[in-house]
């Protein structure tokens, strides 16, 4: 009870300092929040690009329908494949006319359809990488009536590279931002503890136990972390709304991330306070 009362009293006695500590914590966690928002949306964008990775199996014009049906069933049963869809020559032509109207004359003339029939293979999410795609491609090419197999090798390679760059950037920037946030929070709480060094000194002087001295500061640090975390959440959400309204469409981060951010802020507040106070405990 004493610890909680003292921690709250510290906020009351020096509201500016306590407010500044919480504001610095909020700012540090806001940086982390913005980074989380950006990396989460980058992840979503990459995932949606990956969904477009598919294998197209072009079939010869003389392939029999029974052979095509068998190939469609067999390819759909591959573990890497989510589904296989047959696209007839007629459907391919309709699609081309719709998607490429500038070539309308070419596709519409002389009653000849130059486009091949095909099987479009949608891949399992875990199979949208170069190695798996090549395995599916090899399986499709084994059929004698297959003219060609396309999966956009360059596209898959670029996507894979992009994923790796994204992961490395996220790790490096995330680490750097976290270190900056840790330094800011640590400094803010060191200042808060330093401002009360006289009290710590008197406590030691008259024989207060270390735990007794520690507890109010731990709670004070946790409160600064909690308030800072909530403020950072509000700031990040406001930024998200502004970006969504005025710049482009973005997704809000999962609630678990928000809860984790606030919990980390609270925990870090306590730890930073605890480390700051250790220095002063040895002085008397």
């Amino acid at each position: 009870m004493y610890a909680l009362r003292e921690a709250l009293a510290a906020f009351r006695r020096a509201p500016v300092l306590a407010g500044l500590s919480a504001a610095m914590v909020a700012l540090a966690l806001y940086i982390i929040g913005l980074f989380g928002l950006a990396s989460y949306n980058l992840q979503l964008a990459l995932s949606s690009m990956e969904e477009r990775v598919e294998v197209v199996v072009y079939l010869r014009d003389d392939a029999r329908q029974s052979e095509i049906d068998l190939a469609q069933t067999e390819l759909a049963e591959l573990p890497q494949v989510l589904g296989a869809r047959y696209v007839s020559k007629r459907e391919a032509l309709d699609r081309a006319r719709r998607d490429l109207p500038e070539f309308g004359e070419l596709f519409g003339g002389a009653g000849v359809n130059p486009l091949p029939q095909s099987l479009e293979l949608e891949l399992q999410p875990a199979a949208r990488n170069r190695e798996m795609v090549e395995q599916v491609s090899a399986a499709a090419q084994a059929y004698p009536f297959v003219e060609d197999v396309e999966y956009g090798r360059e596209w898959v390679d670029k996507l894979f590279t992009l994923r790796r760059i994204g992961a490395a950037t996220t790790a490096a920037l995330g680490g750097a931002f976290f270190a900056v946030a840790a330094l800011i929070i640590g400094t803010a709480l060191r200042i808060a503890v330093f401002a009360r060094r006289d009290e710590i000194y008197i406590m030691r002087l008259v024989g207060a136990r270390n735990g007794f001295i520690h507890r109010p500061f731990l709670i004070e640090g946790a409160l600064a972390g909690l308030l800072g975390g909530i403020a950072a959440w509000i700031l990040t959400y406001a930024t998200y709304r502004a970006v969504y309204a005025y710049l482009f469409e973005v997704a809000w981060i999962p609630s678990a991330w928000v809860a984790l951010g606030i919990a980390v802020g609270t925990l870090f507040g306590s730890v930073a306070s605890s480390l700051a106070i250790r220095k002063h405990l040895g002085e008397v």
Partner: protein
Amino acid sequence: MPAPPRLALLIKLTQVAKEYPKRGFALRDVSFNIAKGEMAFVTGHSGSGKSTTLRLAHMADRPTSGEVRVTGYSSATLSSREVWKVRRRVGMVFQDFRLLPGRSAVENVGFALEVTGVNRKEIGPRAQRLLSQVGLSTKAGALVNELSGGEQQRVAIARALVNDPFVLLADEPTGNLDERATRGIMELFVELNAKGMAVFMATHDLELVRRYPKARLLELDHGRLVYDSATA
């Protein structure tokens, strides 16, 4: 006044040396005891080791060699986490008072009571009693910054008494006070001593020491104990 041998020893320094990394030796081979109920002065020039002696007796520092025993606790075995045990038996006051500014006299004393675990309901009355004991009952509500030097030192003494200590250590307690305030503080020390509390005071003011011929006198010179009236 030589200490009667039958009295229990509160502070015992045995061949104590204290060396600081930059300053060098502050104390060399110092041995003496302070007994229960004793009043003793330690004198010497600036830098002679008076404050170091008091810091060791308060376990704020540890000797480089030798042993300091305070109310039964040894510097050799008492950990930093356990120092509070000594502090509950030894009160301390300083030349610069070291009060919490912006708080009243009763709040300063009350703070010390609260952090030593005294029941919240008892804090107010006990703080008032302690302030009465040092002659400050009428100034309990005054902010310490508004009090005179002598009054601030009285608040510091009241704070040092919160644990009802066996011994009161005083490091140049009259150094910032005028003649009248000095006399008042010394009368308070004598009064506390008369009630059975040992008082161990560091001062460079030999004139002041001469006014208390019955008190024991220790003299330090360049970190060595050169005179002890108990053994002279």
